[in-house]
Structure formats: structure tokens, C-alpha cells
């Protein structure tokens, strides 16, 4: 392995988004102490500026793709795609947090700093090419997320959510680390490409049991992170308890990043043993879709409902992984982008509607939104129709590409069951539409204030994005397709 002790400028450029995010996060922590309680919106503005800068940095870094720091990081289309995705989710989260934080009296630089650190961790995850680096990224992302989930310290549910998320998440990372250890023991390397080479020809190829154990351990850890069944139980509780903008963030960014490393590890390092691991993913995909959708049918709390729906959606992405092909990888990338947009949008509406102290979280509280705030309702309809998978929305094309990839790989039964699952899912999304348009206004919608600017942006941008992905999907899909080529 070539060791370069003095990384060149281009390597720092490839690490630019992370540098910006970490620096800005630290700056916010310091400002928090200096500014105390004055001018609190400045934190939000600063973190948006930092995120936008990081976004541009990520795009700039993509102009000179390649490895950095002895190859532990790699900037390719795949990394850039997910960097842009998680940073974008970060921006939307901050936009929908302004009003929320003020309403809950919880504005502080700390919140934004944690968010930036979490996004930085995810950027490290998606661009690392080496298991230890992946683990470090995972930890940066996770630990910030644990704190964010319990950010409202006086809220019992938030505390419960944070504790649960922390305990189960730590277990998951421990599993993952075990897997890393075994892989290192078997192959003598933690670089993904080297592992792939060792597994296809080296002596490790002759010890399938241990490699199988390693893959299984890492699968368990990652399935936890993406809330894939049977390791999904934490998701509804955490999403319900966490502050709504944080729940939006958790359901999109860490999940997308976890899927990114899922894809990278299983499609590169463990690619030679794909035939062995794919039945595992097959089962997990089916279980996630089924458990998520059927459990969501009976939920009355909207955040919990979206929590179960996120399990089901993880199932769809796992279907793409089970296809174990480039087409499948591209489909998974596309779907994660579409899902991030529609889910963050839906959560932003919840944040708007829930009222002080998050009192209004029942599905019934959406009653009459269609008459009170037709525009908010129309935007939420776009997100819900996209989650159902109605054409001309991103969600539809996402599902279409995923199931097309699955059929390409001859997963006929998984496709049929998955599509039937999406018909089941239509029921609980429709219920929200029904309540919103077809019932008389409730207390929640009666005292609704007009959409503040930040939230409006956090709704309109994902809505336009969802429609864009639904009408002109080729642009994003092309990019995803090219990036999935680099993956091997």
C-alpha cells in the first residue's frame, strides 16, 4: 500500500465538504458561548451557509475524482451523489427547524452544530473506501444523531427516543465492528478493493464460513442503521419521540448514508460472494416491506406512521440491493433521492401542523387542511402521492426502477410481492389524504398560522424536486447509472 505522508492539495480538495462542515460546526459551538441568547436566527443562517458551501465543495471535489489520504477516501460519482443528497437533506432540515426551534424555545447553536457534525459524518461514510474509515464516519454521524434525537431535554418521549436509539445503535455498530475485525483477520486488509481481490482469488476464498460470518455481522449492523427487518423495531419509537425536523433528518440522511456504505461494501468487497448473501437480503427486503406496511395500516400517530413507512421504504431499497446489479445500485440511488425529498417534505408539514409542544400529531389532526391551507395540503398531497407511487412523481420512478432491476435479476416473486405491498401502502397514505380533504376542519388546522418562509422553502423545494424526478428522471438516473459503474 503506497503511503503518502504529505497529502497534496488535491487530496484536501477531495475532503473539502467535510472540512467545511466540521469547521463550521466548531465555529457554531464557539459562537453559542459568545453570543449567548441574542440573535438566534444567526445560527440557522450560518449553518445554511455552511451547508451550501459544503454542497458546492462536494461538486467542486467531483471535478477531480480520485482517492485521497492513501486511498482511505475516494471521491467518485457515487460519493458525490450521496454527499449532495445528505447535505441537501441537511439544508431542508435546517429550513424546517427555524420555526420549530423558536416555538419550542430551544434555539441554540448546539443544535445546528450537531446537525453539521452528523452530516459531516455521513459525508465521510459515503466517500470512504476502507472499513475503519467507514466505521469512523458511522460513529460521527450516529453519535450526533443520538444527541439530536433527545435534543428537547424536557420531553420524556424525546429522552426515550434518544436512549433507545443510542443503545440499539451502539449494539449495531458493535456488530459492524465485529464484522470488520473478522474480515481483517481473514484477508489482512480493510480496503474494500483489496478485500474483493482477496475474496475472489486469495486464500480467504477457501474459508467461506468465516467470510460468511463476517458478512452476516456487517449485514446485521447495517440493517440496524437502515431500519431493515428484522432489526427495525427502534425506528417507529425514535421517529415518534424525536423532534419532528430531527425525525425528518434521521429518516433520510443517516439512512441514505447507511445504504450508501451498504451498497459499497456489499457490491465491492463482498461482491464475489453475492450468491451467498443475496438470499439474506431477499428475506430482509420482504420482511421490511411487509412489516412496515402492515404495521403502518393501524397507526394513528402520523410520526409513527411515517416511521413504519420508512421501514417499508427501506425494504424497497433492499429489493434493489438483492438484485445485486449495477442497474439495481442505480435504482437504489434514485429511490433514496426521491425518498429523501418526499419524506423530508412530509415531515416538514407535520412540523408545521404539530403546534407548540407537538400536541397535534394524530392523523385526524390533518382534518380540513385542504380548506384551511390549500397550498400546504396540495404540497403534502404531492409527497403522499409520491410515497404511494403514482406516476409523474419521483416515488413512482424510484419504485419502477427498483422493480425493473429486480425483474432483470429474475426476482419475479420479490417483485410481485413488493408491488402488492405498495398497493397495501396506498391505503394508509390515502387515509391522510382522506382526512385532509374530506373531513371538517379540526382544532389543529383551525389555529394554524400561515406558512413561515423557512418552512415554505422546505416544502416547495422537495415538492419541485419530487415532480422533477417524476417527469424528467433521466438526468438523475443517468448520473446514478454512471456512478454505479465506478463502484466496482
Amino acid at each position, binding site marked *: 500500500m503506497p503511503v503518502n505522508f504529505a497529502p497534496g492539495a488535491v487530496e484536501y480538495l477531495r475532503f473539502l465538504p467535510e472540512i467545511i462542515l466540521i469547521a463550521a460546526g466548531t465555529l457554531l459551538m464557539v459562537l453559542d458561548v459568545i453570543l449567548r441568547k441574542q440573535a438566534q436566527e444567526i445560527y440557522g443562517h450560518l449553518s445554511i451557509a455552511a451547508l451550501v458551501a459544503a454542497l458546492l465543495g462536494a461538486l467542486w471535489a467531483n471535478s477531480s475524482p480520485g482517492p485521497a489520504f492513501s486511498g482511505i477516501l475516494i471521491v467518485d460519482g457515487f460519493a458525490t451523489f450521496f454527499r449532495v443528497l445528505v447535505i441537501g437533506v441537511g439544508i431542508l432540515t435546517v429550513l424546517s427547524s427555524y420555526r420549530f426551534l423558536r416555538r419550542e424555545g430551544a434555539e441554540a447553536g448546539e443544535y445546528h452544530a450537531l446537525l453539521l457534525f452528523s452530516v459531516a459524518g455521513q459525508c465521510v461514510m459515503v466517500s470512504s473506501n476502507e472499513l475503519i474509515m467507514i466505521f469512523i464516519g458511522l460513529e460521527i454521524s450516529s453519535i450526533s444523531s443520538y444527541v439530536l434525537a433527545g435534543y428537547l431535554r424536557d420531553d420524556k418521549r424525546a429522552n426515550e427516543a434518544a436512549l433507545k436509539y443510542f443503545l440499539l445503535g451502539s449494539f449495531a455498530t458493535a456488530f459492524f465492528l465485529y464484522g470488520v475485525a473478522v474480515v481483517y483477520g481473514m484477508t489482512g486488509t480493510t480496503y474494500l478493493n483489496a478485500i474483493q481481490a482477496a475474496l475472489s482469488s486469495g486464500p480467504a476464498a477457501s474459508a467461506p464460513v468465516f467470510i460468511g460470518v463476517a458478512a452476516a455481522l456487517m449485514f446485521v449492523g447495517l440493517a440496524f442503521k437502515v431500519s431493515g427487518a428484522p432489526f427495525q423495531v427502534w425506528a417507529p419509537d425514535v421517529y415518534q419521540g424525536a423532534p419532528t425536523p430531527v425525525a425528518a433528518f434521521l429518516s433520510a440522511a443517516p439512512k441514505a448514508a447507511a445504504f450508501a456504505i451498504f451498497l459499497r461494501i456489499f457490491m465491492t468487497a463482498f461482491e464475489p460472494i453475492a450468491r451467498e448473501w443475496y438470499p439474506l437480503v431477499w428475506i430482509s427486503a420482504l420482511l421490511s416491506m411487509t412489516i412496515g406496511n402492515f404495521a403502518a395500516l393501524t397507526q394513528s400517530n402520523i410520526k409513527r406512521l411515517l416511521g413504519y413507512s420508512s421501514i417499508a421504504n427501506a425494504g424497497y431499497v433492499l429489493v434493489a440491493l438483492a438484485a445485486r446489479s449495477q442497474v439495481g445500485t442505480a435504482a437504489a440511488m434514485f429511490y433514496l433521492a426521491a425518498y429523501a425529498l418526499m419524506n423530508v417534505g412530509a415531515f416538514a408539514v407535520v412540523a408545521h401542523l404539530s403546534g407548540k409542544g407537538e400536541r397535534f400529531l394524530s392523523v385526524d389532526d390533518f382534518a380540513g387542511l*385542504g*380548506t384551511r391551507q*390549500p397550498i400546504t395540503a396540495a404540497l403534502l398531497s404531492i409527497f403522499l*402521492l409520491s410515497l*404511494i407511487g*403514482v*406516476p*409523474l412523481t419521483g416515488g*413512482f420512478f424510484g419504485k*419502477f426502477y427498483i*422493480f*425493473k432491476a429486480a*425483474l*432483470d435479476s429474475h426476482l*419475479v416473486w420479490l*417483485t*410481485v410481492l413488493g*408491488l*402488492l405491498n*405498495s*398497493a397495501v401502502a*396506498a*391505503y394508509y397514505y*390515502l*387515509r391522510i*389524504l*382522506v382526512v385532509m*380533504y*374530506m373531513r371538517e376542519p379540526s382544532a389543529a388546522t383551525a389555529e394554524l398560522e400561515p406558512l413561515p418562509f423557512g418552512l415554505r422553502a422546505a416544502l416547495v423545494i422537495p415538492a419541485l424536486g419530487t415532480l422533477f424526478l417524476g417527469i*424528467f*428522471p*433521466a438526468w438523475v*438516473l*443517468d448520473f446514478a*447509472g454512471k456512478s454505479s459503474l465506478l463502484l466496482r
Partner: protein
Amino acid sequence: MNPLDIVLAIPLVGFLVMLLVPRSAEKMIRLISLGFSLVAFIASLGLAIGFQTGLAAEQFSTDVVWIYSPNIHYHVSLDGLSLWLIILTTLLTPICILISWQSIKARSKEFFAFLLLLEFGLTGVFAAQDLFLFYVFWEISLVPMYFLIGIWGHERRIYAAVKFFLYTMAASVLMLTGIIYVYNHAHTFNYSDILAMLGNGRLHFNNTEQILLFLAFFVAFAVKVPIFPLHTWLPDAHVEAPTAGSVMLASVMLKMGTYGLLRFCLPMFPGAARACAPWIVVLAIIGIIYGALVAMVQPNMKKLVAYSSVSHLGFVVLGIFSFTQMGMDGAVYQMLNHGISTGALFVLVGYLYERRHSLAIADYGGVATPAPWLSTVFMITMLASIGLPLLNNFIGEFLVLQGSAQANFHWTIFATIGVILSACYMLWLYQRVFYGETPDEVRHHIFDLKPREWVAILPLIAMMVWMGVYSQSFLPAVRRTTAHILDQTQVNVQFQVKAPASRVEVAHAR
């Protein structure tokens, strides 16, 4: 941009314009939507004029790449089958807007916008020549109808709307699986290319594949038609929908199913279609008789008309799966007839409802005294629906029965029972509503047709007479297309699937 694109674009532009109109401008909302729908109708008449009956190829074709990978095209064109269905759609939309002029008070902006979006989806379904585009339009048409039923419907509207959506959605995801499967083998969604590849043997499905694919498509279409026993969403949706919703649902949306059967199921999977035909015909005949019997005992007018649709659509399916030229001609003609006459029935039932605010037959009686013109118009429509000679349904039913007799005479015997039963329930309905004692409520509430109502119903009456007296204006274009479809089913059968075809003969012999 050819005329067909313009016909497609007008309702969409109308929908977008409607979104920008302020919600308080009630009058303007109605005028704008009426304007757009009328322009679309006139433009679609241009299609009929420019349509060359003698030409077998697709006409007014536009083929533009929408998405490169997978290879999805915006590919629309017309043939004798799509042409009339598109005109039916564009004719009924302004009528629906007219009949909703006063009955829709709450949230009228969304209502009329959704009607235009529905028109867009439906015309798209009939024009699409790319399997993927077809699916897109198919699903798009679902959304506005869901809202039309769910927001502006009657008491049990939410139940009906959700049931309607879920039924169709569950069935159409199976079709999506089928579409993707076909694409993965043909590497194109372009329908004519797929047929060409099937014809020259470059694309081949073995028997199992063909049966499964046929069923995947068939179930989606059968739910829409609806074929017994998948019809249970229909009475709920029809009864709970607002009048305009019922009209569009019965007149056009049900035709999406039969259109799909003719356009896709038969030419793509002819062997499977022929193998399954005897069973499907049995279901169709059960539908004809069962629908009629259930219609007879309905105390609710709308439900009666809804069940009569199940019965009438049974004829269409019978005609299609008779695999005879006459049967198919009759089926297509009956699709149009049903659109006109059942649409008119729903319009008239809606008129009655606006006056008396009840759908129960028992609440009426002697309506002919206060409203003679309404009664006359209802009489003509009802007679058309029964199948009286010189009115439209007669031609369609005759052709279907003739065609099915060529295939298997027993089918005709059973199907004819449906014709008799339809006379029973319709005449009985007419007698109970329009004749007899006139209760006070009826005398006070019911008045005769207003000019706006005349304008809405007259075109339909005129069409009933025209289509009944001079079917030659419509049938040649239809025949050209059905002959082509029939050809495709035969060519492909000889080429590839011998076994199921002979099984059909065995079934015939029995």
C-alpha cells in the same frame, strides 16, 4: 405538434390555468373550464375529420423520446378504436361541467380542475402507444377520480373512494409487473415494435409465461371493466360519486378496461387469450345476467344504473372474446353506446336528484305530470339503453349476439336473457318514477328541464339517434381496427402457440 398532441395538451393546460385562478371567482372558474373542454372537443372533431378510414396504419402519430434509459417514449397515435373513445371523452367532459354548474358549490375550483385533469388522463390512456406511457396515464386518471368521489360524493363517499382506488391500484401493479417483464424481454416499450417482434418470432413467450402475463394484464383490465366477480367496487363508486363523477366513471373509465383487453391483451398474448376465452365468456355471461337481476331489485336509482353497467359491459366482453369480426365490432360499438346512453341515464338521474334530493325510487312517482320534457328525454334514453331498434344500443347488441352466435350458439342464448331482463328493470324503473300518483313532494320540487340542462342532454340524445340510424358513420373505422386486431391474434397463434388453440376447439366441441 400534430392535432392529437393538441387535444391532449388542452385539458392539461386548462388544469394548470385553473390552479392559478383565484378561488373566489366562481363564475370564471366554470367558464374557463367549460371553455377549455369545448376547445378540446372541437379539436377532437378535427381528428375525426382528418382521420383516414381506409388507412390501417397509426395516424396522427407523435414519437418523442421522454426518457433514454429505460427507453421510454412519448408515443401517441390514433386508430379507429382510440378515435371514437377520445371523442367520447372530450364530448362528455363539457357535458359534465355543464351538469355540475350549480350542483357543485363547495371548492368548485378544485372540482373543475380535477375534471380537466381526468380528461387529460383518459385521452392519454386511449392515445398512448408506449406501454409505459399507457401505464402513466392509466394511473393519472385514478387520482382525480379518487378526489371527485371522495370530496364531492354522497354520504359513504370516503369508503367508496378508497375502495375504488385500492381495487384499481392493487390490480394495476400486477399489470406494471407484466409491463416490466415484457420490456425486459423486448427491450422496448413501443407497442407496435413489440407486436412486430412477436409477429416475426424475435420475441417469444412460452405457454406459462404467456398465461401469466395475460392474467397480469387481464386482472387489471377486468377490475376496471368490471368483469364479475371483480365488480364490487363499482356500485359503491357510482352511487357515491357526484353526478359528473358517475358519468365519467361509467361512460369512459369503464372503457379503459375493455379498451385495454382489445388493445393489449389480445394482440400480445393471443394464445393465452384464446385459451382463457371460454372461462372469460362464462364470467361475462354471469355478469350480464347477474347484473341485470341485481339491477332489478335495487331501490336506489343510481345503483340500478350502476348494476345495469355490469350487465352491459358483459356484452362488450362477450363480443371481444368471441374472436369474430362481428363480435368485436359490436363490442367496440357497444363501448361507445354504453358511454352515451348510460352517461345520459346518470345525467338524468342527477337532474332528478338535484330537484328531489333523493335517489330512492320510492320517493318518486308521477314525475311525468310536472316534468313532461324530462320524462320524454328519460324515455328515449331508457329505450336506447334497452336496445330498441333505431337507437344506438340495438346495433351494438345485435352485432355482439351475432358474433357470439358464430362462435358458440349457446353463449348467445344465455346472453339474450340479459336483453330481456334489461327491458324488465328499465321499464319497471320508468313506470315507478314517472307514472302513477304524483306525491306532493314531487309536485312541489320537480320542475321541467332548464335551458342549461337541455344543452347538456341534447347532444347525447342526438348521438343515440345518429348512432342508431346511421352506424356507417362510425363502424368502418372501427372495423378496420378490429379486423387488424383479429388478424394479429390469428397470425401469432399460427406462429407460436398451437396447444392452447386446440384446447379452445376442444372446449368448443364440449
